[in-house]
């Protein structure tokens, strides 16, 4: 575990006063001892703060007020903290933590965050990512892309003739060189672009409307075709290039792969941690008062753990 990630995990713990003095038991104990030196036994009437504790108090103040606390404010901060710690210990002594549903739920959530964080703490090797990618590359499939040029026939200028004018212009274009585009005097000024390079159908639909995107997907590349109607008028279109949908090379999407891998690691780590914990327990449910066909559980029969691994 690198120094930075250790700090991050530690910071997360340290920010949460609720957990400061909680012993988490065997599950994470190994890691936990590393993370927090406060698991040592404390004298019941001694409250000891480290430099880090104090720094944290000041930091908290500074983030809120954008300046260091004055002496009086600092004293108040410490006194507040002392008060919190004393009441916390007294509450623990009275066992108030035992039945508090908020505390319980919060701690359960913390377990999950912790398990996930630990999963995130490990840097994957390239080889590992590549191998994972090989199995999951369909998640990264890229949509087909088109490059095309078009000539616009504006209904604002031509009214109902726009389509016919476009058809006539197509006649004129056919038989001329494929490069005859700009300065041809055909068509009208278009409000956006005359050439679109490597656009997905979705991006084309965004500009021209869904119908147009569908139409040009069917056009034969390399020749002027049309007239094609869009939401903005009529067009002659020449598709230059069609880049088929494909699965990218690992190098192209390495960052995304890492994010996705991480997400999976987190889910996996959490599932595993929970499975392990769950395996240690036997759950007994009361016998239903009225026997019914669906009620199989009895104190003698352990309940199967639910399949989803969720809490």
């Amino acid at each position, binding site marked *: 575990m690198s120094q930075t990630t250790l700090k991050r995990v530690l910071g997360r713990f340290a920010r949460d006063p609720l957990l400061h003095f909680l012993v988490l038991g065997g599950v994470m104990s190994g890691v936990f001892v590393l993370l927090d030196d406060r698991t040592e036994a404390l004298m019941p009437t001694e409250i000891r703060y480290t430099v880090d504790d104090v720094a944290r108090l000041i930091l908290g103040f500074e983030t809120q007020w954008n300046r260091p606390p004055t002496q009086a404010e600092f004293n108040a901060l410490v006194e507040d903290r002392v008060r919190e710690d004393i009441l916390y210990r007294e509450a623990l002594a009275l066992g108030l933590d035992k039945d508090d549903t*908020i505390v319980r*739920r919060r701690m359960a959530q913390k377990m999950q965050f912790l398990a996930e964080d630990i999963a995130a703490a490990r840097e994957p090797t390239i080889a590992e990512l590549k191998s994972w990618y090989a199995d999951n590359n369909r998640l990264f499939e890229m949509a087909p892309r088109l490059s095309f040029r078009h000539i616009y026939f*504006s209904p604002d200028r031509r009214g109902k003739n726009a389509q016919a004018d476009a058809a006539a212009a197509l006649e004129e274009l056919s038989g001329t060189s494929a490069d005859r585009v700009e300065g041809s005097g055909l068509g009208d000024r278009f409000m956006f672009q005359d050439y679109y390079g490597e656009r997905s159908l979705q991006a084309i639909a965004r*500009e*021209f409307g869904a119908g147009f995107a569908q139409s040009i997907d069917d056009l034969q590349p390399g020749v002027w075709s049309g007239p094609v109607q869009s*939401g*903005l008028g009529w067009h002659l279109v020449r598709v230059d290039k069609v880049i088929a949908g494909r699965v990218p090379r690992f190098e192209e999407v390495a960052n995304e792969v890492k994010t996705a891998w991480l997400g999976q690691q987190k889910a996996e780590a959490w599932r595993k941690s929970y499975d392990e914990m769950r395996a240690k327990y036997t759950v007994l449910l009361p016998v239903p008062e009225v026997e019914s066909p669906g009620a199989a559980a009895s104190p003698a029969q352990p309940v199967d753990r639910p399949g989803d691994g969720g809490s």
Partner: protein
Amino acid sequence: MSIQRRSMCSGEWQRPIADTLRSSVRLSTVALAALVSVFGLRAAAQDASQGSPADRKAFFGEQHIHTSWSVDAWLFGNHLTGPDDAYRYARGEVIRHPLGYDITIDKPLDWMGVTDHSEYVGITKQANTPGSAVSEMPQAQPLILKDPNDPADVQKVFNYLVSLVSKPPIKAFMTPQIAGTVWKENIDIANKHNKPGEFTAFCSYEFTSQVNLRNLHRNVYFRDCAKVPEQPYSALFSWHPEDLWKWMDQQRQAGNELLAISHNANLSDGWMYPTDVDSLGRPIDAAWAESRIRNERLIEIKQIKGQSETHPLLSPNDEFANYEIMSFLIGQPEDSGRVPAIVGSYARQALKDGLTMQEAKGYNPFKFGFVGGSDSHNTGAPYRTNNAFAGHGINDGLVQRRMAGHLFTGMDVRKESTAGLTGVWAEENTRESLWDAMHRRETFGTSGVWIQVRMFGGWDYGSDLLQDADWVSKAYERGTAMGGDLPSAPAGARAPSFLVWAVKDPESGNLDRIQIVKGWTKDGQSFEKVYDVVWAGDREPEPGTGRLPALPSTVDLAAATFTDEQGSTELFTVWTDPDFDPSLHAFYYARVLEIETPRWTTVQAVKLGVDLPDTVPATVQERAWSSPIWYAPPEGTTTASTSVTVADLEANGAKALTDDELKALIAGKGIWVRNNVTGEVMKLRYDEKGTYDVSYVGARAQLPSLSGDLPRKTYEMLAAPYTIANGQINTFVSSTPIGMKVYQATGTHAGNTARKHAAYYGARSNEFGYANYEILLEGPANLVELPKDKMDIPVSDQPNYLGVTIEK
């Protein structure tokens, strides 16, 4: 312990610790950011935008959406989908409506911010999850639904929720342990969906202040998700927007840039745009105004629960003001007789009041740009009239419930609109670039369609600029884009010009026209005028009204269809203000109208085979609103104003009339009054029983704000109530009283007319200390001043004017 404490608190311990902290990377970044970003004046260097302004594109997005994580959404039956689903919906994936059927967006968005309520976020869901911590809290018991399919039960729980946000907060629900976790998850989800250049997911939430049923809601948008606080500032900490701004200032000083977007001013009961006292009851001052414009850069002009641009009673000369009006109070009990206020609830009036306050008081609290939004509580939102599933889960998610005019918390759900959208002119689709554009107000709102609109203001836009292939970069160079201030006028410039350009949504109706809405102020009064500046087809404004006739409708109401036979694809022009007065503050914004198309209720009535609803129009003109551009007279411009203020009057010993004196002056009398700002005269008749009427106001009269629809009143001779109380004559704009104090001047001082007698001056309560009305001793014999030669037609020539046939 005591020994250790002493050493901790001694200077030698404390300083080194603080120093260590400051030298750490994290803190020094914060400190640096705080230095360059004091109160929002961010240095240009911090602007992450790449490329030149001419490269800016319109990125469309949703700035206001709720998921099952919002307490009320959960109640509306939205148990299935969270922020993750909201982003998936925005990107075009199919998700589930709360009722379980599939919904798909019509056109995937470029960006979105999920804005779940920060108040009790996730609480309803947790309360209704058996075994959860919250479900066992006594405070949560009223939140638990007995029968989720029983609208009465849902209504009851909803009303409890509304009462929750109006009451002292429940501390147990506010702990970071409960609220912070959900917020953190929210950010993680936004980060997961944020793909710079492709799709932007903002870190955002809603501050839901709902005091006494008044909607004072704000969405808060963070620029950088890495800097967001542990827990958002919610209305549970304080319902006062002022406290939210204070918190935002603190965040900004700590290097966390953020802005707020207010919404549903139309449901605020007049509290969104106050002009006299703030929500704490303190007089509004320069500091309040600065705090507001520093933090509230934008307002949501339209969403599912109506538009907040203007109301027909506030803009009687705006023939398109009668659009998607929604006026009610969310959560109002069925048996309550409360009538919500219109005054103070609409943006255009606020923009006008802002100008007047600038002139009269020296500060303008209402300088904001426009965005749109949905406020859907279904995780997904309906933007189009042919795909309209409304916004509130089980309450309006079934076509039969919608078309039955179900009353949901008092609202006829047929009055709900499609969701609004926001366009942002930004260099690239990233959080920084979009946020910066929002901050500089280069945004526009739409009614849900993808109309693109640009507006620039300057002094040097030739009428042929739009023929230039580089017109966009020249427009930026020579002036300001929407949301900005007009640069100062160069010598010799007569009037500013505005370049407007709009392109239709390729999947919606053609464009009808572009209008420019102008507001200006003089002597405590404000005015507005709507200009048609460019339009489709061969139309000429009608003589007399000056109005552009409507395009023939292509809508077939029996089939709920329309065609593209009318209207334009693209409209643009350079328009110069023909009525410009360089000494007066003004604002200008563009409004683009589509041709008529069937309203969603028409589409669904036809599909369902039932009668068209008679509580909403059958057709609608979808639209877009650009953010305004402001004009301020050059510093030191002092017009030789002959205006009279209350302060002038009092300084000269004028006496305010008492109730009895007012009664003696007006009750049972007909009185001529002149507005000294416009010169307009009118006759008022006050009877003894508390009724008055107004005679002789023309439809073209320049009437100051909050006059109501006077031309209609005078034409139809409609009487209205008045009261005399607390030294004021009160008349009403809808439910809001406007008071007039009357002062009796002692001599012949002040005012803009020479006078032989002591005069009576009236000061209206909404005119910021000016006494603009003068009671005339006698009225004019004629209301119109004809040209002199027209007044000199001898009797013998009179027959020439009769039996006339005018030939073309």
